[in-house]
């Protein structure tokens, strides 16, 4: 990354050109898409920046990173430019720092710097169910909005908002927490030929190790449970505060454990039992976190365990996948609808 140059908004493009002229012999300027990131300055900002940096290293894109500071004493609007990318191919990074009433300027600052004909992804790292003056103008620009339900105060309101947005505007949406469960969904779908659709009990264990970036740790587990329930048409009967779910013919439980090096909120294991007495025990291997050991047993036999490799282990991979994927996952939308039932009592 080159040093950030603080510039007036009108000097953004000329300054970038100058930087590129200096880099002409070392790097090639590239761009696959526009990535607008909205973030409120907090302990999470560095984490978000890190993700974005990783994305732009792998897929060069024009990053427009907006950091708002609601606690600043003076209103301000600052813009800075730099070039990011460790390899020979690199891309533009435009930083927009803003606070107070200057916020209303942000869409006007961004508009001239969108690269035409390329997709525009908006990574909205705040809770979309909370009204924000920038959400409407930025989402109008975007071809795809990526949320992170980690930021949501209420998962129920989050689901309602995302579903409403989808119904009203038809815009493609994605969710980082949903993307983080993809490996587990692949695993379960792999097992479906083995009688998983006959489940009577499901027990999900997640990593309850909090960090300053993550505190809503049950979300991924709830997503998985809601997804199973929606796909297999379970009917909810009762939900208790200690995360025990009673369906018409099934039971679900969510438990926690603490694993030191595993990402917070990440699912550690899923155990399933079926009507005919089969047991599926799927658990991450402590020495190789992205490997899951699967042990299947029945009243008659106990199979040798085998490994399933969960994809997308590196930070930022989920975001990359969500950016390059088109449309909105039908499974995700159905899961959100189901979540409206499961999370009625604000479990998360």
């Amino acid at each position, binding site marked *: 990354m080159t040093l950030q140059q603080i510039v007036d908004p009108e000097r953004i493009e000329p300054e970038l050109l100058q930087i590129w002229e200096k880099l002409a012999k070392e790097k090639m300027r590239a761009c696959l898409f526009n990535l607008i990131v909205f973030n409120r300055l907090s302990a999470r900002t560095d984490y978000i920046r890190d993700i974005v940096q990783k994305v732009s290293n792998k897929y060069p894109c024009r990053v427009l990173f907006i950091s708002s500071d609601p606690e600043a004493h003076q209103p301000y609007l600052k813009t800075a430019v730099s070039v990011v990318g460790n390899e020979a191919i690199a891309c533009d990074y435009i930083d927009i720092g803003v606070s107070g009433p200057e916020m209303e300027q942000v869409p*006007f600052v961004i508009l001239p710097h*969108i690269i*035409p004909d390329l997709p525009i992804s908006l990574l909205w790292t705040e809770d979309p169910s909370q009204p924000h003056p920038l959400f409407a103008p930025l989402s109008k620009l975007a071809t795809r909005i990526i949320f992170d339900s980690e930021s949501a105060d209420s998962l129920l309101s989050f689901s309602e908002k995302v579903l409403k947005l989808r119904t009203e505007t038809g815009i493609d949406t994605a969710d980082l927490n949903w993307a983080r469960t993809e490996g587990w969904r692949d695993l379960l779908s792999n097992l479906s030929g083995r009688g998983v659709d006959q489940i009577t009990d499901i027990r999900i264990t997640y990593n309850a190790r909090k960090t300053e970036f993550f505190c809503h740790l049950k979300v991924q587990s709830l997503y998985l449970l809601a997804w199973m329930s929606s796909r297999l048409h379970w009917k909810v009967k009762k939900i208790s505060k200690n995360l025990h779910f009673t369906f018409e013919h099934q039971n679900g439980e969510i438990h926690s454990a603490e694993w030191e090096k595993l990402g917070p909120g990440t699912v550690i294991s899923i155990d399933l039992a079926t009507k005919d007495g089969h047991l599926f025990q799927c658990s991450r291997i402590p020495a190789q976190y992205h490997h899951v050991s699967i042990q299947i047993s029945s009243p008659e036999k106990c199979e040798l365990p085998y490994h399933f490799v969960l994809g997308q282990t590196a930070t930022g991979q989920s975001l990359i996948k969500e950016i390059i*994927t088109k449309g909105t996952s039908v499974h995700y939308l159905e899961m959100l609808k189901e979540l409206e039932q499961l999370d009625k009592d604000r479990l998360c």
Partner: protein
Amino acid sequence: MLNNPLEELGRSTRNIDPSILVIFGATGDLTTRKLAPALYNLGREGLLPANFACVGFARKEKSHQEFRNELKTAIHQYSRVQPIEEPFWKNFQEQIFYHRCEFDDDRGYEALAALLKQLDSRYATRGNRIFYLSVQPKYFSLIIEKLAKHGMIYEAHKTVDRWSRVIIEKPFGHDATSAEALQKDIITFLDESQIYRIDHYLGKETVQNLLVFRFANAIFESIWNYKHIDQVQITVAEEIGIGTRGHFFEEEGLLRDIVQNHMMQLLSLVAMEPPVSLSAGAIRDEKVKVLQSIRPFTTGDFERTVIRGQYGPGFINGKKVVGYREEKEVDPQSNVETYVAMRFFIDNWRWADVPFYLRGGKRLPKRGTEIAIIFKDAPGVLFKQNGRKNDPNVLALRIQPDEGIAMKINCKVPGPSSPIQPVKMDFRYGSYFGQSPPEAYERLIWESMVGDSTLFARADEVEQSWKILTPILDYWAKHPSRDFPNYPSGSWGPKKADEMMEKDNRSWRIL
């Protein structure tokens, strides 16, 4: 004019007839910003005739040397090539003169005729004249009449050993009636072959390249029709407001200022049939046919598919800017449009039911002129993802700035799964040819010296364009807008323009 046996046709750019260029309005803004730098660059690159002189004609009192100094300052400020080459300028300025005169003063024209004769003998310019009318349109007829009266306009068909040409700056009239009246006035003294109506857009390399692109590349012309093209979007976006042109803009508005000329020219170049030759007549014949095929607007269209807008306060480049009604020399209740979006249909075989969306405006987020050809979707049988079709292919011809051509295609993202991502193949004039293209005015002045009127608007083109647009102006005059200002500065225009597209299941491109 007899052919020169020593000239290699199509190659030489130097065998141009000697001539004198007289600029009316020589102390005006256009001379400062465009004409002076254009002449300097033409001269510096050896593209002016060897025997050449230039006379500035204006009402202000000043000496030849003062005028030369002013031009030098202008060139220093606005020329695309810097710094000024002093040795060249030192010689070149000797060929530049100033003549003070009121536009209606017969004695002044007499003196001008005498000066031109004197320069003819000094520079061997053989009596050839180009009169550049960089003045308000109300003076066009008067100046031409005076020039004719004092023997400076030659009868085109009777004079073979020398020629006179008149370059007219837009606007060519205020509506269909006034354009017709102006035409009637000037053809009393001039033959159509002597009139060069400048639309500087036609002088831009990228606009000229449109013909090359379409007719020298077999792959594009074969799909340039209703079978393959879903829509065409032409955008002329300006970031700036009206600046010091408040008075002018209050009289003209955007439709007259940009749509009637620049945008209609772009439209006809994109939509025209292949001409039988590259002669001015053949090309202009085809352009006129396009304009004649445009479906006339109905009363309902004036509300539904012709959208007008006026900018309010907003932000440009992080700075607060005032709305149109707060600009200098603008009526605080003004109903003049600073934005226009409209949908055209060209009722001919090639363009049956293909909408042409035109949009132009002031105080939009960035400056850019672009023609985008948006192709029909590929059959959605394969490669759908989550029910989403892939993006349509787009061919974007960037006229300015960053002149070039971009093609949007879909591409597989590397890896085992098959997500598809739109990518862009981008050709940029600047980086490919390693130099900035010449300014439009350089090319147009040169063409007028050569006597090629291809890049100038012909009377029937102007007339036809006014015929299409005058009903809109009449409707607007009778139905002033009630929602002005209706878009903030720094945005892409009024909501209604987006709604127009949404009704057609389309959307405007982001530039």
